[in-house]
């Protein structure tokens, strides 16, 4: 029984051979996982979050296991956009799938300057991470208030000639308003969710685990909430959506697609099973066959 299943999707004119994309910050620039399996089998890879200038990241503990998930406070350690353009792109290009450059920033100026550089480089899409704290507004993230996000997206849109994905924070005051503001400001696609702001305390030391006190929660624990957010956003926007948050299995992929996502990103699961990308993809083909799905797009947004 060899029923063909079509998994290819298109987002903002960019063809993906399948809807599975490695999530930013969990997959480096792909090289480490490529030693374990051919990461070119994935639809695409979103790079480690890049900033205009190199960043050392946060001090202290950076990763912490939690029930059904984990917290992280890596603090956007990265080699900077120039170094990425010089060496990172060539590394990612050898995989032959969609190359998404994920970019963070701590000021409007940094976002715009970074986007201008990346837009002229050999990337397929730019993913704008607006969950970063804005130094000028006392550290509140750009992704909290829809009107602040609208300004950043507009400014980046003006200088970015590549398809632009805006990655939303689940900590937004209202995720649907946020999504609509970003679409309105010119986003070609949205991705959600980033990590949930969370906290852990070391009771022996009587101190927060993380130097920054709060850190981002990801993994299975957030999946039902992420799914609800993707569903709510997909009811209201026309642009395609990358759904993510606790995707561990092929069943999870179908749930996000049925909630309206066109593609799905996988993050934390890579740590639980370093072959997760390949395993979920294989399982997705079998699952679609079992469920009588010949083209994954048939079930998009059926819920």
């Amino acid at each position, binding site marked *: 029984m060899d029923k063909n299943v079509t998994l290819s999707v298109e987002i903002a004119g960019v063809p993906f051979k399948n809807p599975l994309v490695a999530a930013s*910050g*969990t*997959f*480096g620039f792909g090289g*480490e*996982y490529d*030693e*374990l399996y051919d990461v070119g089998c994935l639809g695409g890879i979103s790079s*480690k979050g890049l900033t205009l200038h190199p960043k*050392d*990241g946060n*001090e202290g*503990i*950076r*990763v*912490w*296991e*939690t029930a*059904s*998930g*984990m917290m*992280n406070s*890596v603090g956007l*350690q990265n080699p900077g956009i120039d170094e990425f353009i010089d060496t990172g792109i060539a590394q990612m290009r050898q995989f032959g799938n969609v190359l998404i450059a994920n970019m963070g920033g701590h000021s409007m100026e940094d976002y715009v300057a970074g986007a201008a550089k990346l837009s002229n480089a050999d990337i397929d899409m730019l993913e704008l991470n607006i969950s970063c704290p804005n130094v000028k507004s006392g550290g509140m993230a750009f992704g909290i208030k829809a009107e602040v996000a609208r300004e950043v997206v507009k400014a980046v849109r003006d200088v970015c000639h590549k398809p632009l994905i805006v990655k939303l924070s689940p900590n937004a005051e209202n995720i649907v308003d946020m999504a609509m503001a970003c679409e309105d400001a010119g986003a070609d696609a949205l991705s959600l969710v980033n990590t949930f702001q969370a906290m852990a305390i070391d009771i022996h030391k009587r101190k927060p685990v993380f130097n920054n006190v709060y850190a981002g929660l990801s*993994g*299975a624990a957030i999946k039902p909430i992420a799914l609800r957010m993707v569903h709510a956003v997909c009811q209201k926007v026309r642009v395609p959506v990358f759904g993510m948050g606790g995707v*561990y299995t092929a069943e999870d992929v179908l749930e996000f697609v049925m909630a309206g996502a066109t593609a799905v990103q996988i993050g*934390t699961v*890579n*740590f*639980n*099973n*370093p*072959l997760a990308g390949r395993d979920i993809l294989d399982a997705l083909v079998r699952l679609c066959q079992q469920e009588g799905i010949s083209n994954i797009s048939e079930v998009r947004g059926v819920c």
Partner: protein
Amino acid sequence: MRYFESRVIANQRVADDIFVLQVERNSAEVAAGQFYMLKSWDKELTLMRPVSVFKADESVLWFMYRVVGSGTSRISALMPGDKMRLLGPCGNGYPCDALKGRIAVVGGGLGIPPLCETAKTLKARGATVDAYLGFRDALFAVEDFEPHCENIFISTEKGEEGYRGFITDLLSPENYDTVITCGPEVMMRKVASMCAMTDTRCYCSLEHRMACGIGACLGCSIRTKSGMRRVCKDGPVFLSSELEW
């Protein structure tokens, strides 16, 4: 490096809360000082657990570990024949080929087992090895060092066995060409500063919380004199003169 399923050969308690796990190797050549990420669960725990290679031969890997929490207690329940998953070998080991002459390996607590394979490799390469092993109370692994070491010095905190006090009290780095240390950070800092005073080359094997274990997530980065380095990929072994302690 591979991610693979392996079969448990044995898993025995050797002291209070310390176990030795033997599994089929099924993976590439292992260098002294490298580690594997282990798991015996599916999705019940999110992350794999880093554990150093205690001993290795062509077909078997030995790990010695202390039960401290959810992951190690699950691993301690494994029975011969059970399946588990390994990712490795991870990281850079000690540069044993380049180390000659008289070498001291200085271990504390669960930093002791990884030094066993190191002592064996160094001796096979022609070096002379002395072991300095600091225990809390009960001894473990000492007989595993015997074939590879010229002298073995032992300390316990209350003096139940060997010297009473810290193992570093017994060490004179000037007697050695190289000192290799693994154990609690306070102990390694002490060893490193003693070596700095006598200009003795010193390697430290660091511990850090890890998520991926292969260099992708930057969860284990530390600041060094040559910038940020990943303990899992660029380490866990570092020259002490590189560390920003």
